[in-house]
Structures are given as structure tokens and as C-alpha cells.
């Protein structure tokens, strides 16, 4: 039995401690934002936050997570009251197929929790581990810049202004 704190709620989970967090989120807790992409920690579509840091949920065994704070995209806001990152992604229409977007939002959230005024290079480096096949990178970057501004900061040397 392992106790997991997800989006502020405590859950007692009775599965093999080697089970990846992603499976527990999707199969046991019905949290479907984080996606299964490669299952090898290479594509980033499963990214969630653990103690404010972005991690690949597909290669994170729940054995590693006792006493730590897990946040998924569901924890950032709701349809009625979206969080800032979610709002910015919607306003910039950053999603095409949408498969990578929860991972992108988790990365953006982690970056903005660390600093609301990153440099353009810092932002791109932070987003780099999540892959997008549709090619909406420019819109995703715009969304992150917008979210930074909405949180009271802004990308210091933004490649494009927030409109």
C-alpha cells in the first residue's frame, strides 16, 4: 500500500510499487490528461509535476513517490475555471491533435513556478524535452510567453511580443 498525493488529494494505492505513475493516474485514478506516448521517457507526453518539477510519469515508479506532491494538468484548473497556463494554451490555440499538450502544459507550469521571467533560451530549453509531431511549436511557445505575462512576469527577451 502506497499513499500518493495527487492534485492535493491523498490516495491509498494497492498495486506493485514498481508500477509507473502514469498507469496509476490513468487506470486507478481516472486522470487521463497525461498520455502514454513512447513509454520510454523520450517523448514527454506523460509529463506531470512532482514537487514542482517536471517528470516523465511513464518511467517514474510509484515506489519513488511516497510523501511527494504530484500535480497533473487536471490539478491546474477546470473547464469552468481554467488555470493560467491552460487559459494561455486555449487562447493561443496551441493544440492541433493535442496529444503532447498536457506534457507541454506541465513543462510550462514547472518553468513558471520556478520563474515567471525566463529568457527565451531558458523557455525553449525547458520545453525541449516534450516532442510535438503536428508542428505547432510556434503556437506552443506563444502560449508559454502569454502565460508568463499573465502570471505577472514575461519572457525577458521574447522572440515575439504577446498580443
Amino acid at each position, binding site marked *: 500500500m502506497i499513499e500518493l498525493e495527487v492534485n492535493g488529494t491523498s490516495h491509498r494505492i494497492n498495486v506493485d510499487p514498481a508500477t*509507473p505513475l502514469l498507469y496509476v493516474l490513468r487506470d486507478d485514478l481516472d486522470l487521463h490528461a497525461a498520455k502514454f506516448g513512447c513509454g520510454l521517457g523520450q517523448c514527454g507526453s506523460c509529463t506531470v509535476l512532482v514537487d514542482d518539477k517536471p*517528470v516523465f510519469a511513464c*518511467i*517514474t*515508479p510509484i515506489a*519513488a513517490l511516497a510523501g511527494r506532491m504530484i500535480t497533473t494538468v487536471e490539478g491546474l484548473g477546470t473547464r469552468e475555471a481554467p488555470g493560467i497556463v491552460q487559459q494561455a494554451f486555449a487562447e493561443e490555440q496551441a493544440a492541433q491533435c493535442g496529444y503532447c499538450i498536457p506534457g507541454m502544459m506541465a513543462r510550462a507550469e514547472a518553468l513558471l513556478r520556478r520563474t515567471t521571467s525566463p529568457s527565451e533560451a531558458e523557455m525553449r530549453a525547458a520545453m525541449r524535452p516534450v516532442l510535438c509531431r503536428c508542428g505547432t511549436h510556434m503556437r506552443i511557445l506563444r502560449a508559454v510567453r502569454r502565460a508568463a505575462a499573465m502570471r505577472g512576469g514575461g519572457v525577458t527577451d521574447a522572440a515575439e511580443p504577446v498580443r
Partner: protein
Amino acid sequence: MLFGRDAEQRYNRKSFLRMKVLRSGWLRWLVIVLALLLFAFLLFLVWAHRPPIAEITPPPRTAFAAAEIRRGENLARIGNCVSCHQSAHGRPFAGGYGVQSPFGTIYGTNITPDAQTGIGRWSLEAFTRSMREGVSRDGRHLYPAFPYTHYTLVSDADLRALYAYFMTRDPVRAEAPVNELPLPLKFRPFIAGWKLLFFEPDRFRRDPDQSAEWNRGAYLGEGLAHCSACHSPRNWLGAEQRSEAYNGGWSAGWYAPPLNETSPAVRAWTARRLQSYLRTGLSVHHAAAAGPMGPVTHNLARADEADVRALSSYYAWWMRDAPASNREPPLADRSETARRAHPAGAALFAGACATCHEPGATMMALGGRPALPLGSPLHERHPHDTIQIILNGLQPPVDEAGPFMPAYRDILTDRQVAQLVAYLRTRYGSGPEWPDLVEEVTEARENSAP
């Protein structure tokens, strides 16, 4: 009266005592000794002094022949110059990488031909003196983090080619950060003392009993490529211990394993295998190039093939008496023992590592990745390489499609990394259990913070 009678008397007694010291000559001796020391120090300063070499007008690109520049480019790749002369987000050769030494951090300088912040006003003579004697154009002694102890072996023709290459790069205006060293070490004339102890200008001498290829490899490996700078131990003053050449050393928190008969590899490093490792960043009989070795292979993959072959022959020769060269042992897999000894590590391995590393995993079968026990880290004396790879992952060393491993620094705590490392050592490694793993992980995490 301010002090009262008693105090005044005590004061007088004291000054009387001081007079006596003078008369007995103590102070005089002290003055003489100090004067001698000062004189010796001045003599030392005169001896340590190197004159500046006159500035030149930055030469135009057309001053250098294209073939010469190309040769210089190859040599700069073999020398891995860019690793220290480029910062993480900086431009090539504009400097800024911090070499971590036990004494402090020393920053690679700007070696683009910028007239103000680079070497634009350096003549060939000034460039040659810096490479062979470790003295800057303005006469300052250079810290031996710049491996002139090796570059002193480089030939005149190769120095000319390197000079042509650097003087034709795009000039970048970038001042290198100020070195972070304790005050006495900031005093550069002391480096002259270090040189007196540990450095002798020299040229490469061929060994007539060895092949031309061996000699080429020795010339490049001992000179420009300066392999032993990382792969040899250093003494307490930071000088390479020549008597223990290639016995393993340190670089940026990574252990650079021995390249001699004490190599911990479990598969022989033949010239052919070394060649493919150095050219692709991956030996399917060993492992991928990790840590500071990644950029080395990145550059060698783009260097002259015959030169890399010569380096491979030379280092295969150095490792000819290593255990694996005589007999390649069967690979251990003590999974049950390891699981019983380190159950927590076993669970972490199953959830975090097995999808790629368990025998038969997709990454192994389709990706052609070598099995975990083939790499040296689990057989090394020190746990640092295993810890570094888990904490910081592996970036494709040579090109984007190369081997990649995600970093686990945000996934696992120090204790969990330690449990995993202990499990891996027991399951696949050789040698005794590593002590103090939690402390080692904590330290590695702090020192490699992104």
C-alpha cells in the same frame, strides 16, 4: 590622570622590556630576515617575469591558405578545444566554460579573433608561446587548466595550422568570467613556481621501434588530444602524476576510467572497437560516451578518420594488458541476490529502468543498445559515473539520433538513487559494494545542478 598609578607603572615596565628586546638584537634579526625574504621575493618576480609580445593588426582572412585552415580545423577537433572555450549557451570558441578544479573555477577564454576580448591581436609567436609555455600574449602566466603541459609537444606546422583556423573564425566580443580562485592563487607569478616543479617545454620524439600509426597516435594523444589530462590522477597541486599515467582521473565530477592495464572494461578495447566508439559515440561492446567524453566523440566523429584510427591504435596498445584483453569474462546477472540485498533498489529498477535496460527490452532488441554490465561504470572503483548517468541522463553524443537517456534527478531522491546504484552494483557490477552512496549522490547532485 587617565589610567591611575598602577597602570602607568605597568606601561613603563612594558616599554622597558621592549627596549631590552631591541638591545638583545631580536628585532634586528627579524628585520634582516624580512629584508632577505623581500629580496628573494623580488628575485622570484624578476625570474617569473615574461615580457609581453607586441600586438598586431588583426590579419584578414586572406592572409591564410584554405588548406592550412582546414588542417587547423581537424586539429582543433582532435584537441577538443571547444569544450573549454565555449559556454553552455555561448558561441564556439568565445570562452566561458568553467573548469572545476580543487582550487576553484577557471574559465576558458575567448579564442576567437576579436581584437578586444579575443586573440585578434596575437601574432603567431604569441600563440605559439601560449601553447608551448603557458604564457599569455601580455606576459601573464596561464593556469595549467589550459593543458600546455601537453600542447608543448605540438609541432610548428600544426601550431601554424591551428593559428590559421582560430584567426579565421567569426570574431565574437565576449569577456570570459573572472576566475573564482582563493586570493593567493590569483597571483599569477606563483604559476611560474608550479611550472618549475611540474612542467618542462618539450617536443614530441618518435619511437623508432613502433609503427608510423602508433607514433601518429602517440603524437596526437599525448599532445593536442591531451587524453591523460582527464584519464590520469593528479597530485595535491593539480599536476598529472606521470608515474601513474592513464590510471584513471577526474573531470567535472565524472570519473575518467583507466586507459592502461588496470582498465575496468569487461570487453577488450581493440583498435577497431575504439575507432567505432570514438567515431560514433557508441561501442556496442561497451557503452555510449557519457559526460565530458560526449563532446570528445562529437568532435572526433568530425575529425580525420586516419588520425582517429591512429589514436585508437595507440590507446588499444596502452590497454593491451588489461584483464579483458586476455579473457572476456561471462557477464554477471545476479538478479536474485541483488533483489534480496536491495529490495527497494529492485523495485525502482523495475519501474524506472527495466523498460529500456532489462534484457530483451525494446531498446535493447531494436535499438542495438549494449547491455548494462558491458559499460565500465558498474565495474569502476568509484560510483560517480553510475550516479552521474542516473542523475543527469545521457545526451546523444555525436548527433541527434544517438543514444539518449532521460535524467532522473527530479524523479528520484538521493536515497532512492543510492538504493538503485547499490542494486545495480550487486546485480551486474564487479568489485566490493560502494560505501557512503547517499552522501556521494547528494554531492554529485549539488555539483551538477543545471
